[in-house]
């Protein structure tokens, strides 16, 4: 499985890198030509290409420049330094985890209520769907002002709220499906045992919903990270990967922006892998077929 995929994936990755370098040359060349014409000299193509690879403010930094900047941000700083990407990544990670936990609690809680009470399903479910069509970013700056006014100085709280808002929905949808997944025969069996509502829930519905739960976690963690980064953007936040991107954009430092972007991508990848591992472990312990 792994080996017959490795070659195509590597080929595509190589093609992406090749395209990226080509695009970097193409996009950054204008700057080189401008410099040359200002200096009154002409440059040949062979001279242009190396100069597109190492500009201080490239339009599109080539991969190795991003990698260098990323390495500088991760390894060449003390972890506590404000310039360390590890530090900013940790701030974003903390926000993501808070939002993720909040989102799971909210999603599972609502799903339990919806499966138990029909009135909850009819009244809450449509609004839960509508809530997701509201662009949360529109709420982000306001959640921040409001929590500031209310004397919550902690920047984590609004971030966590935004991130929970985005991540609760996949959990809710999957859990409703999962808690309803036991079929009539299984439910009938439990009612012949004279099981109470609570027992049916703990011994049948909840275990049956676990595969759905873990499947939704992967979507939810990605959503939580997006929410945290969005929460860091419009707010004048000074910490976190989203704030780094904003700083890079405002001070015209594309390298900072790109490094933060890739740090965020690496964080996302790591979180997804971890959630996948937890899922595998939980499924193995519950005796699910691999």
């Amino acid at each position, binding site marked *: 499985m792994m080996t017959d995929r490795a070659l195509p994936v590597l080929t595509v990755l190589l093609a992406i890198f090749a395209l990226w370098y080509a695009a970097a040359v193409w996009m950054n060349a204008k700057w080189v030509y401008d410099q040359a014409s200002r200096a009154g000299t002409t440059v040949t193509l062979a001279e242009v290409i190396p100069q597109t690879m190492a500009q201080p403010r490239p339009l599109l930094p080539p991969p190795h420049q991003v990698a260098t900047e990323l390495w500088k941000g991760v390894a060449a700083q003390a972890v506590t330094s404000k310039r360390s990407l590890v530090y900013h990544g940790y701030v974003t990670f903390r926000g993501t985890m808070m939002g993720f936990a909040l989102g799971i609690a909210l999603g599972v809680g609502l799903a339990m209520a919806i499966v138990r009470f029909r009135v909850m399903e009819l009244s809450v479910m449509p609004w839960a769907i509508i809530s997701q069509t509201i662009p949360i970013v529109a709420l982000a700056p306001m959640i921040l002002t409001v929590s500031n006014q209310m004397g919550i100085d902690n920047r984590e709280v609004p971030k966590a709220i935004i991130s929970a808002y985005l991540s609760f929905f996949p959990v809710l949808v999957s859990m409703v499906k999962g808690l309803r997944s036991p079929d009539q025969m299984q439910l009938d069996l439990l009612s012949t045992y004279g099981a109470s509502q609570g027992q049916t829930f703990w011994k049948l519905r909840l275990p049956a919903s676990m595969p759905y739960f873990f499947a939704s976690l992967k979507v939810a963690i990605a959503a939580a990270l997006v929410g945290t980064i969005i929460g860091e953007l419009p707010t004048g936040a000074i910490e976190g990967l989203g704030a780094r991107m904003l700083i890079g954009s405002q001070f015209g430092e594309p390298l900072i922006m790109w490094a933060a972007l890739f740090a965020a991508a690496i964080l*996302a990848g790591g979180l997804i892998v971890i959630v996948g591992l937890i899922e595998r472990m939980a499924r193995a312990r519950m005796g699910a077929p691999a």
Partner: protein
Amino acid sequence: MIWLVGAVLVWLGAWALNVRLAASAFGRTRAGRLAVATLFGITLLVLWEGLVRGLAVSPIILPGPSVIGPKIAASLPTLWADFVQTVVKGALSGFAIGTAAAFVAAIAIDRSPFLQKGLLPIGNFVSALPIVGLAPVLVMWFGFDWHSKAAVVVVMVFFPLLVNMVAGLQATDPLHRDLMATYSASYPQRLMKLRLPAAMPFFFNGLKIAATLALIGAIVAEFFGSPIVGMGFRISTEVGRLGLDMVWATIAVAALSGSALYGLIALIESRVTFWHPSQRK
């Protein structure tokens, strides 16, 4: 105090009514379901108004619906200009380009098993990344006007749509494919008559995800620079001036556009994929 008690009483009353409605035969009909949901929405607004008045919340923290409503009516021209700039020019044009690109790319990928194996894991991974982060880069490339917003939206909607569409094109039944082979159908015939229709439920799933992303992308991109019109611009400047009623008015427009876009896609979906089990009444 009277407002607070009143709001809670209305809420309890409406909830009791909803419980009865949900249990009754009327609650099983389409109109009944709509009534219960609408009633719940209205009680939320009443509760909001009651809390704001009862607890004397400053309008700088949270204005009530009774303040926001007139504000919407009073600033319709501004809201309309913002709507055109952000939703029509930014989000919808980007949405259309991204959808078309993903559609074509998915059909191209589907023809090559090598590309499928190579691109799908990467596409899956990329669609889980915080692509919003590309917004500042794209604003730098395409300038402050709506072109950069459309570009952000294109990148954001492309990957979820691509992954869904490729999965959809593979969702045909072996029996159906065999039937097509016995008819000696050509590739375009198989594509038009079997694979594309079979892919439509997946495609619409992707469209629904992308519709929300499109609005988010267009608004976020405005935080990184915009002309003096647009929803993202309006929100960030009004928050700075503590004009929260205007912020809420813009949010209401955003929510309305998001829901309308979603509803429109759901409507088209029910027309196009009327044969799918999830659409049967």
